[in-house]
C-alpha cells in the first residue's frame, strides 16, 4: 500500500492535469466555433463557383483543356491534410492510417505515388515510411485563401508538367463535434460536377469565350477545394481535440475519486492501527 503522502501527491498531480485538459477543452471550444463559422462562410463561394463551372463544362467543348484531360494514370499524388499539433484523440492517427491504406491498395495501380503533406503530424508520421514530395507545416493556425491558392498552384504546375497524372486529396471533413469523416476526393484531373439538364437553359453571353473562361475558372476550382479541405480539417481538429480533452477531464475526475477513496482507506487503516497500539499498550499496563 503506498504511503499517505504518496497518494496525496498523486491526487494533486492528477488535479493539475485535469485543470490543463479542462482549459484546453475551453480553448478548443472557442476555436471550434470560429472554425465552424469559417467553414459556413466559405460555403456560398464554393457553391456558386461549382454552379458556374457546371454550366460551363456542360455547354462547352472540354477537349484539349489540360486540367480536365484524363491521362493514362501512371503516377499519382496524394495530399494528406493533418494537424500541426497533437492531443486531439485519433484525429491524426486515423488519417495517417487511411493514407497508408490508400498507398497499399493503389500500389499496383500506379508506378509511383508521391505524397504532399499539410500539417506537421502527418509529415512526422509518413516521412519514416515513404518519401515526401513536399510538406507544408504551420499553415493551419490561420488557414487563409492565399495559402490554399499557393498550394493549389503548386499542385497544378506539377500536374501540367506531368509529374503526376492524378491527384487525390485526403482530409478529415467536419461532420459534428464528435465525429469526423475521412474524405478522399479526386482533385485532378477535375471531374466536372454532374450536370442536371435544365429544361429551359438560357442562352448565355460569354465574355471572353467559354473556353477561355473555363480555363480560368478551373484553377480557381482547385484552389477552392484545397481551401475548403483546410477549413474543414481545422474545424474537425478542434472538434476532435475538444472531445478528447473532455474525456480526459472525465477520466481525471474518475481517477481523483478512486485515489481519494484509497487515501481515505489508508488514513482509516492508519488510525485503526494507532488505536490498536494504544489499546494494547493500555491493556498491558493494566495487566
Amino acid at each position: 500500500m503506498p504511503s499517505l503522502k504518496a497518494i496525496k501527491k498523486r491526487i494533486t498531480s492528477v488535479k493539475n492535469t485535469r485543470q490543463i485538459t479542462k482549459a484546453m477543452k475551453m480553448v478548443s471550444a472557442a476555436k471550434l466555433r470560429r472554425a465552424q463559422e469559417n467553414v459556413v462562410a466559405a460555403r456560398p463561394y464554393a457553391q456558386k463557383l461549382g454552379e458556374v463551372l457546371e454550366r460551363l463544362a456542360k455547354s462547352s467543348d472540354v477537349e484539349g483543356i489540360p486540367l480536365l484531360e484524363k491521362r493514362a494514370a501512371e503516377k499519382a499524388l496524394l495530399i494528406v491534410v493533418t494537424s500541426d499539433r497533437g492531443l486531439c484523440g485519433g484525429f491524426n492517427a486515423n488519417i495517417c492510417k487511411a493514407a497508408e491504406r490508400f498507398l497499399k491498395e493503389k500500389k499496383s495501380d500506379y508506378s509511383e505515388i508521391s505524397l504532399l503533406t499539410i500539417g506537421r503530424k502527418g509529415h512526422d508520421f509518413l516521412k519514416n515510411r515513404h518519401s515526401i514530395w513536399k510538406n507544408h507545416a504551420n499553415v493551419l493556425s490561420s488557414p487563409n485563401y492565399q495559402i490554399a491558392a499557393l498550394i493549389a498552384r503548386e499542385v497544378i504546375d506539377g500536374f501540367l508538367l506531368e509529374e503526376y497524372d492524378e491527384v487525390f486529396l485526403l482530409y478529415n471533413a467536419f461532420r459534428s463535434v464528435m465525429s469526423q469523416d475521412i474524405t478522399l476526393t479526386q482533385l485532378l484531373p477535375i471531374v466536372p460536377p454532374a450536370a442536371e439538364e435544365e429544361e429551359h437553359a438560357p442562352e448565355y453571353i460569354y465574355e471572353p469565350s467559354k473556353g477561355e473562361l473555363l480555363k480560368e475558372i478551373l484553377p480557381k476550382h482547385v484552389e477552392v477545394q484545397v481551401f475548403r479541405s483546410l477549413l474543414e480539417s481545422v474545424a474537425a481538429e478542434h472538434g476532435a481535440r475538444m472531445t478528447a480533452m473532455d474525456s480526459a477531464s472525465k477520466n481525471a475526475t474518475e481517477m481523483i475519486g478512486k485515489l481519494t477513496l484509497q487515501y481515505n482507506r489508508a488514513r482509516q487503516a492508519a488510525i485503526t492501527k494507532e488505536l490498536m497500539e494504544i489499546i494494547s499498550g493500555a491493556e498491558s499496563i493494566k495487566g
Partner: protein
Amino acid sequence: MAEKITLELVTPYRKVLTEEVDEITATGALGEFGVLPGHAPFLTSLKIGELSYKKGGAVSHLALNWGYLEVKEDKAIVLVETAERADEIDLERAKAALGRAEEALKKLTIEDKDYRVMEAALERATIRMQVAAKAARK
C-alpha cells in the same frame, strides 16, 4: 421587367453584400460594362478593378481583385477573391504597397517571373487608392 437587380457579392471568407440595386458597373476582361435590370444571361471574368453600383441616388464603390460576374434572371452574382468597400480601404497601406511595387518593377524586366506579380500588386494598389479617393470626394 423587374425594376431592380439583386447584387450578390461573395468572397471565400464571407458574403460581402446582398442588395437590390438599380445599376452595376464593373471592369470585365474586355473592358468596362454596365448591367441594368432585365439584362440577358451573361458570364464574364473581371479584372482587378472597380465595381460600383447605384441604389436610389447613391453610388457605392468597391475595389475588386480577380473574379467573375454572372447575370441570371435579375440577379447578379459576383465571385471575387477580395472585395473592399471604399470605407474599408487602408489608404496608407495601399500607398505603401504602391511604392513597394514601383520600386520592385524598376529592378525587374518583363522576362522575370515576378514581373507579373508586381504588376498586379501595382494595379491593386492603384485601384484601391482610386476607390478611396472617390469615396472621400463625396
